[in-house]
C-alpha cells in the first residue's frame, strides 16, 4: 500500500483557510446595524430574486456572503432547526445564540473534515424586546464565531467596513440614518457609487407582532434613502 504524503495539520488548515478567504473575497459585503426600532440589514445584491437576507424565525434574521448555493443551504438548515425547536418547545425558546452555536459547530466540522471548506460567512441577528439590546453573531468559514454589538459586517470587505462603521456608528440611529450610513460604508468599501436598486434591505422591527422580519421594497427604499450619489 502506498504511503500518503505527510502534510502537517498547520499547512492543511492554512491552505483551506486561504482557499475559503479567496472565495469569500469575490462576493460582496453585507452590513447589519442596530437602529432605534430594531435591526436593519443591507446587502449589495444586483439580483432581485436571489436573496442574501432571509427570515429565520419570529425575531431572527440571516445574512449570507460568499457562495450562494452554500449559504442558501445553511439558511434552509437554520429555518429547519428553528421551526423544529419552536414546535417542540415554545416560540420564545428559539434564540439567535443557540442557532449561531449550531451553525458554528456545523461549519467547523465541515472545515476540518471535508476536502473543500465552505466559502461563506454568515450573520445571525436577533432583535431584542423593548429595552434589551439586539444580538448579532458573525460566523466565519472555519466556524469561529464573533459576538458583535451595534454594527456588524460580513463578506470580502468585512474588516474595512467594520473599521468604517466603528468610527461613524452611534446608538439610537433612525432607519433613514442607518441606511445612509450603510450606503456610505458600502461605497467607501467598494470605492464606487452604490445604486439604490442594487441594495437588498430587510429589517427586524421590534414593534411588529409575531414575525418581525420585513423586506424593504425598492420603492420604499428610494423614499427612505433620497437621491444618492450613485443615482445622479
Amino acid at each position, binding site marked *: 500500500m502506498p504511503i500518503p504524503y505527510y502534510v502537517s495539520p498547520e499547512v492543511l488548515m492554512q491552505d483551506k483557510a486561504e482557499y475559503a478567504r479567496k472565495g469569500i473575497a469575490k462576493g460582496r459585503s453585507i452590513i447589519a446595524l442596530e437602529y432605534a426600532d430594531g435591526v436593519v440589514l443591507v446587502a449589495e445584491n444586483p439580483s432581485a430574486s436571489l436573496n442574501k437576507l*432571509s427570515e429565520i424565525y419570529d425575531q431572527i434574521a440571516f445574512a449570507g456572503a460568499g457562495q450562494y448555493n452554500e449559504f442558501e443551504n445553511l439558511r*434552509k*438548515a*437554520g*429555518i*429547519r432547526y428553528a421551526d*423544529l425547536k419552536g*414546535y417542540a418547545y415554545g416560540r420564545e425558546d428559539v434564540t439567535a445564540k443557540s442557532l449561531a452555536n449550531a*451553525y458554528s459547530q456545523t461549519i467547523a466540522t465541515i472545515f476540518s473534515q471535508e476536502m473543500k471548506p465552505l466559502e461563506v460567512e454568515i450573520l445571525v441577528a436577533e432583535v431584542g424586546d423593548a429595552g434589551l439590546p439586539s444580538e448579532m453573531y458573525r460566523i466565519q468559514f472555519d466556524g469561529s464565531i464573533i459576538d458583535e454589538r451595534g454594527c456588524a459586517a460580513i463578506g470580502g470587505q468585512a474588516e474595512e467596513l467594520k473599521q468604517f462603521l466603528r468610527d461613524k456608528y452611534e446608538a439610537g440611529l433612525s432607519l433613514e440614518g442607518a441606511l445612509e450610513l450603510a450606503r456610505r460604508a458600502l461605497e467607501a468599501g467598494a470605492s464606487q457609487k452604490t445604486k439604490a436598486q442594487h441594495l437588498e434591505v430587510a429589517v427586524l422591527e421590534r414593534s411588529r407582532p409575531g414575525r418581525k422580519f420585513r423586506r424593504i421594497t425598492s420603492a420604499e427604499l428610494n423614499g427612505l434613502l433620497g437621491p444618492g450619489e450613485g443615482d445622479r
Partner: protein
Amino acid sequence: MKPFLEPGLGSSFTGLLARCEPGMFPRFALEGAEGGAHPLGITEAPHGTTILALQYREGVVIAGDRQATEGFQVAHRRIEKVYKADDHSAIAIAGAAGPCLEMAKLYQTELAHYEKLEGVGLSLEGKANKLAQMIRMNLPAALQGLVVIPIFVGYDLRAGCGKIFKYDVTGGRYEETDFYATGSGGKDARAALKRLFRPELDEAEVLRAALEALVDAAEEDVGTAGPDFVRGIFPTVKLVRRDGITDVPDARVREVCQQVVEARRRAA
C-alpha cells in the same frame, strides 16, 4: 444541524418532522388496537363542538363556540377552536380536542415554514390541499374515534374573493360557496345560516348571523356552549379580508350576543 443540510428535505414541515424527528410526529392512532374503538373510547377524550364560516361583502367570517365536552361533562369552557393560519387564512377545528390543537399548531408551522424556505407563500388552493393531506394522515386515529374536522377559510388575493373549504375524515376537500358549519351543533348552525344568509351581507349583519347561528346551536346541542355572560366567555370570531385577519374584540361579540339574546327574550 447536520441532518438539516441533507439534500431532498423539501419545503414541508410535516415531511421534515416525519424524517428528522419521527418521535415528535403527532400520531394518535394506537397500533395493534382493534379498529372501531380507540382504547380511550370516543367519549373519554374532550371534544370541541360547533364551528362555522360564512361569506360576506369583504371576505369571510369564521367563528366557533368555546366549549370542549367530555361525554356528558364540560371538559373546558375557554378552549380556542379558531386559529389564524397565516396572514390571509384561518382554520377552525371540531373534533377530538388534543389532536385538533396539535393539528392547528402543526398547520401554522407548516405554512410559515414553506413561506420562509421558498420565499413566497403557498396559494390558497395549495394551503387547502396541504390541510387535506394532514387530515388524511389522521385517518387511522379517526377510525378509532379521534376525529378531526376542520373548516378552512382564506382570502384568495389572485381571485379577489374569500373562500370556504370543508373536509371529511378521509381528507376529502370540498369548496363551499356561501356558508358551512360543522361539529356536534353544526346541523343546527347550518339551519340557522340557511335562514339568515344572503349574498353581500355587511360586517354588522354577518356578525349577527354568525352569532345567531351559534346561539341556535347552543340551544339545540348539549355539547355547544352559548355566550356566557356570567364568566364573560364569548365565541371567537375572526374576519378574513384582503387586508388580513382581524379578531373581533370580545366587547363587540358580547354586544351582539346581548342583542341576539334580547331579541329572543322579547319574542318569547
